[in-house]
């Protein structure tokens, strides 16, 4: 891993219009991604976590221009040249796709059922105008890399298990040898016994090919296992960013703490679940004023709903978006259970 960034995301925003009624009038915007900035170094794995709807997939789709960002720059430092993906031309995007590929969450719907495995994997090569013969040869070369035998080349997706399909998606992403891979929940749809195979494969490939990953997942134990650094999102905002150690052992944002505390420990002799966060993620159409987390935060004060905190540098590359990041004591005791035995009487 190096200190040279391969990807720099600066002030990225994506707002989706919300339309209602017969005339499809725009009644508001979902701020799916709101002024998000981060960088990823060569050879690093950056984990992106947060609850459903916080904007993880939208970030990933913006990175590949599968949706058009509304604001911000996405700088990809390629081997020869730097691209701003947010404003790249069609022709430049061809180059970008040679350097960055995506693996999707659902191995069932992301593969076209009418295509054979070999055609699925070869698709990014065809987009790069590589000849058929050459493409077929490279598919046979990459199959063993993802742990599939050559006989898989002629199969159709419905003839594969979930894990095999995800291997095919990984092969498709890697066929153009991109230095950067965005993986959007690559193991969430897989069985437990297959999940660890795919994680191992991703780790292996990363060290063999010096790949850089942006790894999106909601399973925090897996993110912790694979990531060097972790970014935490809440309602379109980046709320904490730091090394895996900073985030897991010394987190400074109450939301991160709440997320970590809700991870269930696979040990029946440790059942004292420390803390259960109350309430639910508010509507992204109408996020709470000031700090978006203020409606659920046990530390919220007047200032919190009045003023939105900035993402601030706590030193050592640890960034936190909380007014009181320096002062808060996020020890377990303060996170006393609030949602305990509901009373039977009312």
């Amino acid at each position, binding site marked *: 891993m190096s200190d040279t960034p391969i990807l720099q995301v600066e002030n990225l925003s994506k707002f989706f219009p919300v339309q209602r009624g017969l005339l499809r009038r725009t009644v508001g915007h979902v701020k799916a991604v709101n002024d998000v900035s981060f960088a990823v170094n060569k050879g690093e794995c950056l984990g992106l976590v947060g609850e459903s709807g916080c904007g993880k997939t939208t970030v990933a789709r913006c990175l590949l221009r599968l949706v058009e960002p509304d604001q911000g720059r996405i700088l990809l430092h390629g081997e020869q040249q730097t691209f701003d993906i947010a404003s790249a031309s069609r022709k430049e995007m061809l180059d970008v796709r040679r350097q960055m590929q995506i693996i999707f969450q659902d191995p069932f719907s992301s593969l076209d059922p009418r295509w054979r495995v070999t055609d699925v994997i070869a698709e990014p090569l065809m987009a790069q105008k590589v000849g058929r013969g050459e493409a077929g040869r490279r598919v046979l070369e990459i199959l063993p890399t993802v742990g599939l035998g050559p006989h898989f080349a002629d199969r159709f997706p419905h003839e594969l298990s979930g894990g095999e399909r995800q291997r095919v998606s990984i092969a498709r992403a890697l066929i153009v040898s991109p230095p950067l891979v965005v993986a959007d929940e690559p193991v969430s749809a897989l069985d437990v016994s*297959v999940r*660890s195979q795919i994680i191992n494969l991703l780790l292996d490939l990363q060290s063999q090919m010096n790949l850089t990953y942006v790894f999106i997942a909601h399973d925090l134990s897996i993110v912790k296992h694979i990531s060097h650094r972790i970014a935490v999102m809440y309602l379109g905002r980046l709320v904490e960013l730091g090394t895996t150690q900073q985030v897991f052992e010394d987190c400074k944002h109450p939301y991160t703490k709440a997320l970590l*505390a809700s*991870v*269930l*420990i696979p040990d*029946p002799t440790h059942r004292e679940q420390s803390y259960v966060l109350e309430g639910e993620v508010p509507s992204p159409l109408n996020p709470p004023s000031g700090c978006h987390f203020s409606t659920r935060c046990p530390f919220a004060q007047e200032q919190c709903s009045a003023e939105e905190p900035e993402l601030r540098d706590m030193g050592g590359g640890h960034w936190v978006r909380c007014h009181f990041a320096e002062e808060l004591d996020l020890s377990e005791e303060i996170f006393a259970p609030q949602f305990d035995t509901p009373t*039977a009487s009312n």
Partner: protein
Amino acid sequence: MPNSQPILEVHDLHVHFKMLAGIVRAVDGVDFTVERGRCLGIVGESGCGKSVTARSILRLLPSSDTSGQILYHPDGDGQPIDLVGLDAKGDAIRAIRGKDIAMIFQEPMTSLTPVYTIGEQIMESIRQHQNLSEEESQELAISMLNKVGIPDAERRFADYPHQMSGGMRQRVMIAIALCCEPRILIADEPTTALDVTIQAQILRLIRSLQQDLDMSVIMITHDLAVIAQLADFVVVMYLGQMAEKAPVVELFQDPKHPYTQALLRSIVRPDTPPREQLHSISGSVPDPRNAPSGCRFRNRCPSVHDRCVEDPPVVEFGPQHSATCWLYVDD
């Protein structure tokens, strides 16, 4: 466990489906006992037969070929009722379904009716099993919504399911399941579709209601962490068969079946060294129509040997701990 009393006993349960492509042996020889006031966990990967087991208890699989015994012990000294012997559409099972034994399904959106308010749906369930006036039913419904942690329940009463979040819908499902104070709650992956923070809320809710109402719970999940946190007793399933069953601490500390051992090794724990290779199980779960003969785990088992082509025996390791495997039998 002191004065443990069985409330539900499942003996040698088989559930088969006849399909054009062949017979799916979705459940093939499952045995377990649910004790009063305790939580039994059923864990296994996709397609191993967890939901089929759960549904067959309530006779919700009329087109299946079901054999074995499912003995339900009602309160008092009444004789146990064999649910397998009941007519799936008859009055006897209907009186039990929802009243004595209630179920929360995997996907709350498909089990709530979109065209009725959630209030109407809870009231309907109360009406089916209890003789209460309209006002009393409404009062009970609102108190149930309060109890499962729906804020502002009086107002939410008139909401339609689509107006609620996934977590709220799951709470409504729990309220419907609990409004008749069932003796057994079957929860089929109640948190799989939910975020971690909401999962923690729902599991805590189920646990506290279990204690308050002295209810038994059958918790179905593919997540060993959920099992570790909630279950007293665990059944591990693989491709329709029972690989192992044990009290929860014993299962985690001294697993006997190679599948349980491999599963437990493959999960990431707080102390797993970062970025190192994880233990994994080779291959993937085969299609149940092409399940290997003998031990169904044998094409993936690291300890496989010649005998495994034949049906493995159930080996006891204690009064409540057994594994279905050849490994512990001398030849």
